[in-house]
């Protein structure tokens, strides 16, 4: 099997040796990325922080024994974070609650000055309503910017299956956000 080029290889090696500067750099490089993944998968910022913290802890444990060349460290870290996310998603489904999930207010359009923030809230809400696997596909490809091959491998599906998930997810998002897209079209004139 051909050796896989990994831009994190040297950094992981130094982290494994306890290099304090490398540890700092790893946190700066990976923590925002993993937090963003967890936040978009789970919607809950507290749970997202828990997942990010646990994923990084596992990264510290793995670094001293990381064998370069077989996989990218970033891909491995994504796998760890996704597994932690799915653990939480499964736990949610097992918990019966009388309190309905918090709904985003779909009321009248806000003032222009708040449009970007409100749009972001609407987009995140629409993402959270997607089936888990469609959301995962969109988060990995669009936000985490993994290649289709990397994302398909992480999700343990073929590229064709990945594209099907992406297409269905994007179609559902277009429906959810149709009014915002119409506003954008009107602005374009």
């Amino acid at each position: 099997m051909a050796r896989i080029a990994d831009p994190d290889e040297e950094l992981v090696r130094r982290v494994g040796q306890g290099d304090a500067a490398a540890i700092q750099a790893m946190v700066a490089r990976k923590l925002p990325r993993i937090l963003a993944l967890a936040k978009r998968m789970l919607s809950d910022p507290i749970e997202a922080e828990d997942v990010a913290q646990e994923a990084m802890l596992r990264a510290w444990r793995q670094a001293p024994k990381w064998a370069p060349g077989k996989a990218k460290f970033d891909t491995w870290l994504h796998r760890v974070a996704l597994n932690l996310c799915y653990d939480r998603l499964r736990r949610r489904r097992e918990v019966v609650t009388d309190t309905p999930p918090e709904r985003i207010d779909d009321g009248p359009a806000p003032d222009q000055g708040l449009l970007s923030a409100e749009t972001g809230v609407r987009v995140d809400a629409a993402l959270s309503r997607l089936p888990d696997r469609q959301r995962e596909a969109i988060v990995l490809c669009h936000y985490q910017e993994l290649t289709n091959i990397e994302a398909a491998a992480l999700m343990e599906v073929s590229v064709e299956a990945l594209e099907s998930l992406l297409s269905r997810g994007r179609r559902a998002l277009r429906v959810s956000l149709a009014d915002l897209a119409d506003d954008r079209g009107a602005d374009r004139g």
Partner: protein
Amino acid sequence: MNAERLQQLVAAYGADPRRWPEAERDAGRALLAAGPGDATVEAARDLDYLLWASPQPAVSMALRDRVLASAAAAGLTPRRVRLWRDRLALTFGAGWAVAACAGVAAGVLVSAQISADASADAVLYQASQSALDDSEMLG
């Protein structure tokens, strides 16, 4: 590459060719440029723009500090501290050596942390800004 495959690419990956599979990117670009404007591509471009409105969560100082502290808890001590610990263990016994090195390791990590705080914060700040830069570039 044909019109049907181009539609599949746009439906799955969006209107930005930079997000299409590398092997199909150039051919897709050429076909897109050669054809008339397409409502499907425009709709995909609108969705791409909206998706970038999703805010990039900021890493709190508290979370960063917990993650940094967990590195020491996971046993990531600098090599020179490990060598020193081994020498102390030979001379004084394992218990004393571990206690001494835990204090040194914490001190090394804290001092490195303090000296690197400004640059780490700058890197974190830049990382949080990069999503905004990307949205401007791709939107």
